[in-house]
């Protein structure tokens, strides 16, 4: 029984902004903010007149940590930024370091195809989280279980290749830690076989659901020029019609050899972003199928230069030189020539970039992340104005921020 239902009786404060507008804080403990986000909103009735997202609740100083680790160790903390697609982060950082070292042309193709395969799988896994939790935001609970089951199969593959579900640190400067294990490609085949029927189920549950369409169509409309001015990239930009995809604009890791379409829509609303991500998952699966074929031919997965490649494990027990060599790489890493480089890849959320500076030491001098989530989230200030407060959840979900990356 509620005796006093006024907010003040519950320790809440409602601030009057004058002329009847009201300031309401959403979060940081709101279940649908996908992490810890606070949005201070100014309301005129139910209409948002101003939205100010407050970030930083998950700030862990990963960039500072990375500067104090060896080149080889930094990728472990960097993987933890965007924890929904850890391999994209590691891949981008490692390619940047390879460019600084001047060995980016020597990385074996097999390692690059494996990187492409794993990154695309992680894109699908990341979109599965967005699809599942985004559906929950709108009240569609069942989709969550179907999407997370699919994601779990992908994490099984990550575990099979790297030994851990989420942060395997499997990609190394110069290639991969080990070759893909026996039976990995057969597991990929199983995933491909279950993927398309599962996506049909998910599309049936979510895509044509009239309630979801009503909630998303014409909500949070973003125009192409605004999107570029606000630094929005990835699916949110492609939903406005600009086919800017780093995999095509600045090809890396042999993406020139893969056939896939850059999915665009022109509406720019939450539903367009939803559809771009769904269609993008199918394109990612196309790339996975092609990469899987390329991986049938065996070959080296680590650069031949022993300055960067640790000796094979079996030689360490037999050869003193191999033991010393292994010890040196593990205990003091290697030096990287002085210089700076900017490396970008197409992460699941957009242009994921690393600005890496080396001063010639065995640790990075500066590792600056270009976090796509942060720029995508910032545009909430623009698109939320004039919308209903109830649609705020839809808009945050459609921008797909991950706060490990926004706050770092």
């Amino acid at each position: 029984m509620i005796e006093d239902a006024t907010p003040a009786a519950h320790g809440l404060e409602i601030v009057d902004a004058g002329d009847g507008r009201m300031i309401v804080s959403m979060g940081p403990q709101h279940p649908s903010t996908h992490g810890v986000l606070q949005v201070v909103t100014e309301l005129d009735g139910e209409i948002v007149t101003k939205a100010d997202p407050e970030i930083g609740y998950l700030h862990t100083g990963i960039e500072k940590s990375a500067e104090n680790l060896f080149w080889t160790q930094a990728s472990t903390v960097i993987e933890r930024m965007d924890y929904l697609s850890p391999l994209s982060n590691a891949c981008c950082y490692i390619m940047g370091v390879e460019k600084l070292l001047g060995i980016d042309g020597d990385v074996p193709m097999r390692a690059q195809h494996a990187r492409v395969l794993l990154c695309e799988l992680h894109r699908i896994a990341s979109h599965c989280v967005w699809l599942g939790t985004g559906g929950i935001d709108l009240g569609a609970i069942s989709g969550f279980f179907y999407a997370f089951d699919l994601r779990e199969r992908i994490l099984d593959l990550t575990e099979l290749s790297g030994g851990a579900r989420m942060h395997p640190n499997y990609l190394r400067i110069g290639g991969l830690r080990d070759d893909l294990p026996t039976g990995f490609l057969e597991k990929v085949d199983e995933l491909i076989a279950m993927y398309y029927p599962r996506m049909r189920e998910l599309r049936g549950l979510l895509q044509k659901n009239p309630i979801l369409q009503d909630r998303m169509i014409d909500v949070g409309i973003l125009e192409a020029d605004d999107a570029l001015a606000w630094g929005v990239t990835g699916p949110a930009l492609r939903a406005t019609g600009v086919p800017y995809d780093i995999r095509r604009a600045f090809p890396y890791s042999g993406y020139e050899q893969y056939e896939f379409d850059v999915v665009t829509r022109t509406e720019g609303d939450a539903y367009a972003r939803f559809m771009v991500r769904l269609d993008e998952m199918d394109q990612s699966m196309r790339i996975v199928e092609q990469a899987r074929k390329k991986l049938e031919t065996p070959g080296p997965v680590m650069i031949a230069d022993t300055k960067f490649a640790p000796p094979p494990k079996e030689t360490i027990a037999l050869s003193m030189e191999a033991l010393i060599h292994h010890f040196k790489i593990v205990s003091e890493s290697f030096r990287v020539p002085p210089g700076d480089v900017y490396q970008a890849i197409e992460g699941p959320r957009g242009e994921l970039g690393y600005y890496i500076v080396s001063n010639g030491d065995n640790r990075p001098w500066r590792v600056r992340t270009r976090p796509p989530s942060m720029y995508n989230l910032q545009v909430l200030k623009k698109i939320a104005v004039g919308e209903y407060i109830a649609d705020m959840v839809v808009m945050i979900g459609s921008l797909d921020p991950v706060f490990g990356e926004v706050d770092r």
Partner: protein
Amino acid sequence: MPSSQTPPAGATALDPTALRPDIADARILRVTPAEVRATLEGLKADGFALLADVGGADYPGREPRFDVVYHLVKLSAAARTLEAVGLPERVRVLCGVSEADPVVPTVSDLWPAADWAEREVFDLFGVRFAGHPDLRRIQLPADWEGYPLRKDYPLRGPARERTPRPSFALKSNVAAGTPASGRTAAALQRQIAAARGQTPKDGAE
């Protein structure tokens, strides 16, 4: 190869960006804070509609000490096909900022994207952006002291932020095979209380 983990003096570069190897990742422009605004306005008029990032870097001992780094992509909002996007050009603008007067004009009116990015550079490096509409800390609490990404800021933060930690019992003090029992836990609680200068609670033995 030296055997020590610390490099010998003179082995590291004071200004690494001046020594960079030949990497074709972007066209690089170096400007002063007085020129940066005109340079970026010119680039925007030239079709660089996407300001990908604004970041910072600290080079103690160099004059100017800080770099504010702008990454731009030549991209048009009217591009609707892959051919129209093509292989866009990247430009990196390095703006040296001195420690004595760490002020750069804002570009958040040209690209709203710069709003949070400039706040973050201010928050973590202490470089101020003149004309920014809302220049306050973004990642750290508003009452934080110091700028953590400066190289003279300690990795684990200033001493006032350190929490007391118990020193764990040596292995030799614990009989082999003894599990972490209530006794061990009580000993740890006593150590924590002593470190905090409190008397242990009743029942904590």
